[in-house]
């Protein structure tokens, strides 16, 4: 399958979405990412049983943190799909890209070291 998805999306592989931590998501935002999303296995199909379900809760926690400090919570999201759903992967990437483009660049700007 030669599916294309927006080239501005940087994929970071993890053994299981359960490995994704609140801090990873926050640090991405802190370091200037316009958005960050987690693509986990379908619910009920986690090889480690509940990694994806736990991480959905972590994603929701990060959304609440962003909301509290006045940043659009939609910049962080979680999707579930299986490794056989390449089409869906490309579709999600485009959806997320469009959503973030509509929100505009992140308001979190680090001052450039002079």
């Amino acid at each position, binding site marked *: 399958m030669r599916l294309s998805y927006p080239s501005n999306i940087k994929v970071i592989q993890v053994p299981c979405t359960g490995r994704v931590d609140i801090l990873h998501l926050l640090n991405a935002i802190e370091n200037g990412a316009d958005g960050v999303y987690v693509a986990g296995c379908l619910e009920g199909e986690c090889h480690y049983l509940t990694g994806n379900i736990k991480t959905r809760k972590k994603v929701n926690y990060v959304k609440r943190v962003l909301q*509290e*400090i006045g940043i659009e919570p939609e910049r962080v999201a979680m999707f579930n799909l299986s490794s056989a759903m390449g089409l869906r992967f490309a579709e999600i990437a485009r959806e997320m890209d469009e959503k973030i483009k509509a929100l505009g660049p992140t308001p979190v*700007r680090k001052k450039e070291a002079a």
Partner: protein
Amino acid sequence: MIVADRKSLEEILSMVKDYKNILILGCKGCVTVCNVGGVKEVEILASALRIARQKEENEINIDTNVIERQCDNEYVAQIKDSVGNYEAVVSMACGVGPQFLSEAYREQKFYPAVNTTFFGGAVAHGIWEERCAGCGTCIIHDFDGLCPVARCAKSLLHGPCGGSSKGKCEISKETTCIWDSIVSKKMEQGRLNDLLKVRAVKDWRTARDGGPRRSIREELTK
């Protein structure tokens, strides 16, 4: 253990609004166990505050540290070389922590990042409940191990009150009426008569009503 909840980010942000260089200090005691002020939570708070301040284009430098316990002077002393490097220190320990810190470092300003709530334990993953109110004279053996002082909204010693309904307390449908539980347990064990015992009025002087308390173990004092 002592249970606490983190204050809102809004409140913490307003505490540190005038500072550009702070330390967030966690504690490896109770607040680590109830996931509110340990290594992980310190880093999360630091990141959230940095993001908020970057957004306002008013960056803040935040260092983090976590000590064994903030309620022991020997551990509090471990930050003596670094505590002066900051405009303020935000403590993620229970209310004891910022007080020990303030007493040890008079010239520094300490802010509590958590609201200290109760003595209790985890009843399920991620859920903590109150069990003890530190009344200073434990009487739970009379109630089969269920504490009416901490767990009855009115601290009744001869309950239940008229507000008890279907096992719930009148204050909320989420709250167990502990007197319903006490009576049920006594019935189960065929010991309902225990509750007929007329008890002397509880002496609340050993509780907070008697003023700040102190424990002394002569064998340990120097």
